[in-house]
């Protein structure tokens, strides 16, 4: 079975590492370091996260990127050979959507492959609904999936949608 490389990206604190920890069937490779900026959590990914998952008859290799722009060289390195992109954005932080668009443009310029926008933190007050996020990105609504990356029952949904778009 040919493994599919999927890149999981998006601004800091969107839930990329959480998603990979929720889904991975193998021991997760993570690279957390103590955060020295106020990012709303104690640690942040400095190199990559890696996990694997069987989904709809495919073996997925999930590569999570750091979120901060200073690590854009990792966006570039991890984009190589990716067959799909999952961009995560926080529904309660519309101020970070331009940064998310910047990451998506960067990654798609290196890996022009199908992408899905995953909208997290929908349980917070004052959120942008997936429809509004779709409008912001100019992305068809069927490519935008609201979900909770902490919930094993939901976490695979955006990836299942991505597999449909990849058309495997």
């Amino acid at each position: 079975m040919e493994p599919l490389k999927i890149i999981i990206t998006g601004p800091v604190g969107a839930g990329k590492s959480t998603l990979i920890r929720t889904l991975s069937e193998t021991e997760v490779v993570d690279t957390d370091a103590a955060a020295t900026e106020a990012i709303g959590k104690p640690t942040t990914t400095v190199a990559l996260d890696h996990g694997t998952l069987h989904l709809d008859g495919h073996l997925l290799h999930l590569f999570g990127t750091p979120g901060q722009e200073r690590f854009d060289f990792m966006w570039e390195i991890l984009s190589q050979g990716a067959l799909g992109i999952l961009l995560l954005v926080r529904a309660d932080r519309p101020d970070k959507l331009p940064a998310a668009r910047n990451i998506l443009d960067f990654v798609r310029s290196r890996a022009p492959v199908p992408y899905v926008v995953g909208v997290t933190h929908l349980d917070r007050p004052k959120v942008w609904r997936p429809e509004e996020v779709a409008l912001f990105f100019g992305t068809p609504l069927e490519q935008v999936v609201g979900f909770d990356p902490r919930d094993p029952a939901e976490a695979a949904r955006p990836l299942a949608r991505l597999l449909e778009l990849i058309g495997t």
Partner: protein
Amino acid sequence: MSKQEQLQNLLGELKAALPELREIIVASADGLPIAQLGESEIATRLAAMAATAHGLGKRIATTTHLGDLMEIVVRGNQAYFIAYAIGDKGILGLTTPAGSNLGLVRLEAQEYAKRLAELL
């Protein structure tokens, strides 16, 4: 003396001990530049890369049972980039030309990493 001045002085002393060093940077573990000597335009980028190399190196060390990570070496045909943990406070990164006495670099850099750890 402010902490920043003390940091700069320490980096200056390291440079005096190893004059062949090209860049010297101190980065936080999450890749933000804290102090530097040398070409400023690459220092910010080098700080992020030092944190990435160090974070990944630590994982490689655990996964392959190497024990605690002691140093990261990137060897080019013209120079080296070498990084050391400053306790759990950050990373000391430096570049030095090919042909440098790496044993001496290692000795001095580890000593200065210890002194930087007390300061940070």
